[in-house]
């Protein structure tokens, strides 16, 4: 499956990038994606964030081929 991962705010300091494209042989669940990120980036598990799939906030849910998965730290608008 092909996924676009997007990072914002303080998370970009951890990842060093705003966006990543992942291509994997197997289907990945949201928790598998998070587990992979915590392997790649130190302190990932200490971060506070919400997840949006294709620009909709989710708490769980299926990830499908071509999805855009965004990791959103606490909001600070206004």
């Amino acid at each position: 499956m092909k996924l676009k991962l997007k990072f914002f705010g303080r998370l970009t300091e951890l990842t060093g990038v705003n966006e990543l494209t992942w291509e994997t042989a197997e289907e990945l669940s949201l928790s598998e994606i998070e587990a992979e990120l915590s392997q790649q980036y130190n302190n990932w598990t200490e971060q506070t964030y919400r997840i949006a799939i294709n620009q909709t906030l989710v708490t769980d849910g299926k990830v499908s081929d071509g999805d855009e998965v965004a990791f959103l730290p606490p909001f600070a608008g206004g």
Partner: protein
Amino acid sequence: MYSIAILPMINSLNGMIKNHFIKGAISPDFVAKAIEKYQVKTNIGAYDIFLGQVRADQIDGRVVRAIEFSAYEEMANKGLMELMETCFEKFNLTGGHIYHSLGEVKTGEICFFVFTSSGHRPDAFAGTQFLVNEIKKQIPIFGKEIFEDETHQWKVNKL
């Protein structure tokens, strides 16, 4: 020092999504011009305006000199349009606009401009308050508080 931002309408797969973002600070002149555009609507009896200004907070002896805003723009623009639609369903408004800065905004400058208009004041008061509170909670905008010594911390809204 100030310039008037041009707000392009952008195309998206979901139709026309309004761009609510302005690069840099929102000038007082921009606010004045927004009101002026509405004055031809003579069924308006009330405007309510909220302006957010970058505050020189002092945190552990460091003083904030600016906030650098960023956003998940596609999601934020959609969310802002949906919030405005909900606001029009809840309150009897004749108009409404939301603008937010992106990039660096210095202390004492305006970064957030919400205005609503209505026939009578209760709807405009309630509409603006609804929009401001929900934007702070729901819209993916991020702020890096830059201190005078160029260190920084990430702002988190108090809800």
